[in-house]
C-alpha cells in the first residue's frame, strides 16, 4: 500500500516539476574567444557568454559610473545572457516565464540567490552614482522577470556574484505555459579578471 502511495506521489511530483531533458553545450565564442554556455530545454534557449571584467568596467565607466562602482559590478561574475523562446513566431507554443529571483548559484554547500538588481541599485544610490548611470544599469541588466512569447528573445547582463575565475553551478527554474520546469548547468566559469592589454599581449 505504502509502495503504491509512494509511486503515485512520485508520478504527481514528476508531473508538477518536469525534470529537464536539457541539452547543455559549452564552446568558445568565435569572435571574442570567450567561453559560452548554451542550455536548451523545451521552448527555452539560454546562452551565457563571459564578459571580461575589463569589458564591463569600460561599459559602465562610459555610462557615468565611478571607477570603484564599475569595478565592483564588473568583478561579480558577469555574463551576457540571451534568452529565446524557441517556438517560431505564429506557431502555437508555450509562453516562457523567467524569474531570476528563483535561480540559484551552486558553490559550496548552500545554493545562493543571484544578487538582485534592486540591491545593486540601492548601492548605486547610496554611493551617489548619477541618474543616467543608474538608468543605463537598469536597462543593461537582464530583466528580473519576463515573459517570452513564441519568437521573442531578450539579452542583458546577469551577475552571478562569485569572484573572477570561480567555477559554479547554476540551477534554473522557469515556467512554460504556467507549468514549472527546472534544469541546470555545471562547471560555469566566472570570467577571469584579464585586462584588454593582457588579451592583446597574448596575441602578440
Amino acid at each position: 500500500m505504502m509502495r503504491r502511495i509512494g509511486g503515485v506521489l512520485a508520478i504527481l511530483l514528476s508531473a508538477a516539476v518536469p525534470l529537464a531533458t536539457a541539452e547543455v553545450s559549452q564552446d568558445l565564442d568565435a569572435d571574442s574567444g570567450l567561453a559560452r554556455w548554451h542550455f536548451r530545454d523545451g521552448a527555452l534557449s539560454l546562452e551565457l557568454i563571459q564578459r571580461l571584467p575589463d569589458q564591463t568596467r569600460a561599459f559602465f565607466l562610459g555610462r557615468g559610473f565611478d571607477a570603484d562602482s564599475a569595478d565592483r559590478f564588473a568583478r561579480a561574475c558577469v555574463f551576457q545572457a540571451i534568452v529565446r523562446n524557441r517556438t517560431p513566431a505564429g506557431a502555437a507554443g508555450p509562453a516562457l516565464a523567467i524569474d531570476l529571483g528563483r535561480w540559484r548559484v551552486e558553490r559550496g554547500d548552500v545554493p545562493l540567490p543571484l544578487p538582485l538588481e534592486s540591491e545593486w541599485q540601492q548601492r548605486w544610490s547610496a554611493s551617489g552614482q548619477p541618474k543616467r548611470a543608474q538608468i543605463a544599469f537598469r536597462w543593461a541588466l537582464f530583466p528580473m522577470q519576463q515573459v517570452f512569447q513564441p519568437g521573442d528573445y531578450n539579452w542583458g547582463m546577469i551577475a552571478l556574484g562569485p569572484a573572477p575565475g570561480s567555477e559554479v553551478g547554476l540551477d534554473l527554474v522557469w515556467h512554460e505555459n504556467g507549468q514549472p520546469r527546472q534544469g541546470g548547468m555545471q562547471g560555469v566559469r566566472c570570467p577571469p579578471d584579464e585586462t584588454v592589454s593582457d588579451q592583446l599581449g597574448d596575441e602578440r
Partner: protein
Amino acid sequence: MRRLGVCVFGLWMLAMAPAWAAGGMGQGMTPLPDRPPAPEIDLVDLEGQRHTLAQHRGKVLIVNFWATWCPPCREEMPSMERAWQTLKDDGILLLAINVGETEDQVWTFTSNYPVNFPLLLDQDSKTIEAWPVQGLPTTFVIDPQGRLAYRAIGGRAWDDPVLLEQVRELHDAASH
C-alpha cells in the same frame, strides 16, 4: 592621439563583442488580445519637435524603445528605416524612443545609423517606466484607437513582409 582613438574604439568593440557574436533576431509580433490603451507619450525628438500620442490618434503607430549601446537595437535600426520608407506613404508612423541618453549621444549614433523617422528622447526614463517594457529593444504597434495591438520583445527584421503585412492590416481595417 590617433592611437588613443584606435584603442578607445578597440575597447568599445571588445565591450560589445559577445552580444554581437550572439546576434540573431526574434520573429513576428505577439498580438495583445485585450488591446490595452497605450500609455501617454509626451516627448521631444532630435529636431526639437514635440510628439504626443493624442496628436497621432487615428493612425497606426509603431513605437520602438531603444538605446545606442544595445546591440540588437542597433542591429534592427537599418531594417526599421527600410520599413519606414515602405510604410510612410501609407500614413503609418514610426517613433523610436531612446532611453536615458543625451541628445549628443543620439546624434553621434545617427552618423553611423542614419534614419529618417523621429528619434525621441526619454532622458529621465519616465516614459518607458509607464509602458509594459522589461528590456530593450521592445516595440509596440498601436492601432488607430490608441491601443496596444502588437508587441515584439527583442530585435526584428522590420522589413520582413510578414511583419509589414501585420501592420498594414491594422491600417486597412481602420480605413474600411
